[in-house]
């Protein structure tokens, strides 16, 4: 059967509204001699939800961290909402302002209250006055369903609550893109659902999201496109239906057989 599957076309055709939000062009990344990313090409559209899957060591975390310059790419271009990532600090900070990032290990600031955690960046980076920042913080906390925790410290919250605070903290900056780096991998199974619910609600409001995860249920339910990476390369890209029911590449089939 002749395969009509074209990786390049699938990777470069943005979903959502169709306008490109994140553009990754011929990106390489080396750690010493080890090549973590080779010739990555991907376009994420506005309001699109892209889920990145892959075995460990495939470079999916490296890719998502390269988008907001937590890793520095060695070749190629990365653009976020038209702004090109370069060595210029202003560009980097502009991109970082517009990308919210949620980490696997939450990375809340332990010496600040939840309210301070969330209002820190809007007040210091966007220069909002205290009232506006706190109002926005309460709005986001209510959205992730934990408004009563505002005056506690991160150490007093459960893992699922901390991750939801981390989501609220990123959302308070009103970013254009939300990046998730294995947000539920460090959580007890009982808490995974509450975080995934928050992410599903977020997707429903039209946020552009790029999510690295192992939660297949989330991918099937919410993703517009699924990107499969292995050994630093994008192997297959497609809709969830295409990906889970009709994968084309052998590497993809191998991966799916091991996890499903």
């Amino acid at each position: 059967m002749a395969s009509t599957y074209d990786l390049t076309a699938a990777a470069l055709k943005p979903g959502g509204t169709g306008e490109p939000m994140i553009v990754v062009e011929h990106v390489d990344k080396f750690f010493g001699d080890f090549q973590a990313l080779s010739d990555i090409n991907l376009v994420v559209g506005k309001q699109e939800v892209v889920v990145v899957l892959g075995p460990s060591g495939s470079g999916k975390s490296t890719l998502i961290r390269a988008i907001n310059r937590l890793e520095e790419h060695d070749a190629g271009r990365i653009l976020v909402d038209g702004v090109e990532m370069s060595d210029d600090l202003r560009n980097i900070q502009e991109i970082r302002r517009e990308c919210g990032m949620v980490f696997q290990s939450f990375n809340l600031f332990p010496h600040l209250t939840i309210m301070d955690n969330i209002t820190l960046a809007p007040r210091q980076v966007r220069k909002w006055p205290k009232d506006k920042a706190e109002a926005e913080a309460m709005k986001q906390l209510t959205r992730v369903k934990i408004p009563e925790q505002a005056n506690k410290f991160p150490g007093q919250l459960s893992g699922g609550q901390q991750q939801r605070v981390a989501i609220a903290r990123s959302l308070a900056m009103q970013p254009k893109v939300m990046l998730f780096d294995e947000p539920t991998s460090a959580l007890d199974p009982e808490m995974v659902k509450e975080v995934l619910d928050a992410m599903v609600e977020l997707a429903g409001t039209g946020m552009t999201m790029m999510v690295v995860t192992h939660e297949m249920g989330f991918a099937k339910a919410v993703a517009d496109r699924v990107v499969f990476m292995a050994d630093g390369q994008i192997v297959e890209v497609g809709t969830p239906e295409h990906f889970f029911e009709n994968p084309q590449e052998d590497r993809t089939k191998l991966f799916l057989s091991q996890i499903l």
Partner: protein
Amino acid sequence: MEPADLALAEPIMPEPDRPPSKKLSATEWAKENLFYNVASTLITLGFVVIFVALLKNTIRFVFVSGRWEILHVNMTNMLVGVLFPREEITRGWIALFIVAMGVAFMVGSAHQLVAQSDEELGAAVVPQGQQMRSALGRFAPMVLLVVVLLALARQARFGAAALIFGMVAVGWVARTVGMRLPRQRAGLGAAAGGLTVVGGFVFLATGVGWQQWGGLLLTVFLASSAIVLCFPLGLAAALGRRSKLPVVRAFSIIYIELIRGVPLITLLFIGSLTLNFFLPAGLVPSGVTRSVIMITLFSGAYVAEIVRGGLQAVPKGQTEAAQALGLPTLKMLRLIVLPQALRNVIPALVGQFISLFKDTSLVAIIGLRDLLLVTQGFTKQPEFQGTAAAEVLAIAAFIYWVFTFTMSRESQRLERRLGVGTR
């Protein structure tokens, strides 16, 4: 009963068992820990003999055979030095009040700065019985020192006691006020406390020049100035060492590695003999200034390494989260990294300050009349002619011990309160 009623009834939990009590009576404890076999019995008896002998000799020395007259007449000399004009003693007391207030306020604010939970932030606002008892325990050495000094002094005992009591009260209030500061104001509070300390010394200096300071006053002044100054210096050097700018990094590394390789005595000699060559002509700082500079430089290098260790212990995810939010580097350091880094290294920092306090005794080498040199000088006075050397050493050692032990206990308490090492 209906099955439905059973289903909705609250399950009755059995009373949890109490763990079996292991309380031993005194004889049982002794039998188990001290005399459990022949060898341990012999060791215990041996230690008891040594301990009783030491105790007997100490008590005899302190209360019976010690020739404490040397301190009766020299109390003021020991506290403020031989050159301090006696008519300015009042100014000295006022300055001491100001300094005590500043230090206490700084300690209180510092506590608010590093607190990491509701309980910590609101802690000790209402002193409870247990906390007051632990406070008494911590300050017992200081109380003992005051009692000893009052016992040895021969004039104005009542006035001195009243003033000391007043100072303790002022210090307590200042610390409580400092601990009620909200987090955002705590940094300002610590700075204000530091400035108050400086102000206290400046106030004293306007009446009595530095050159006339001596004894305990000089020791405390040298130590506190060096502590206050070496901390920002060490902080700057630690950050400079991690900087991406090559010149800044080179300077910081050279400073740290050079100073750490040289003993403090050498630095004090350099300061007193050769510092003139490095300064513009005509600027001849006093001996006290030079000592403060050299001790500060010395301690700053060690503080830099301690802070650097603390910075490395802050998880990388913290800087990543701050960067991902768009925080510029300086703000990230000030708001996120340094509060966590400094909390990590409180034990090491206070240890360094304790060492610093004791190292001030080295200024005797360059002729500054600090506590140690002044007390040594007493035995050379014509009335005493070389006697009572043990007594003066004992009192000097006791005073050093009281200060360092109090600092150490306060640090332990701060660590315990903040849960350092348990989270």
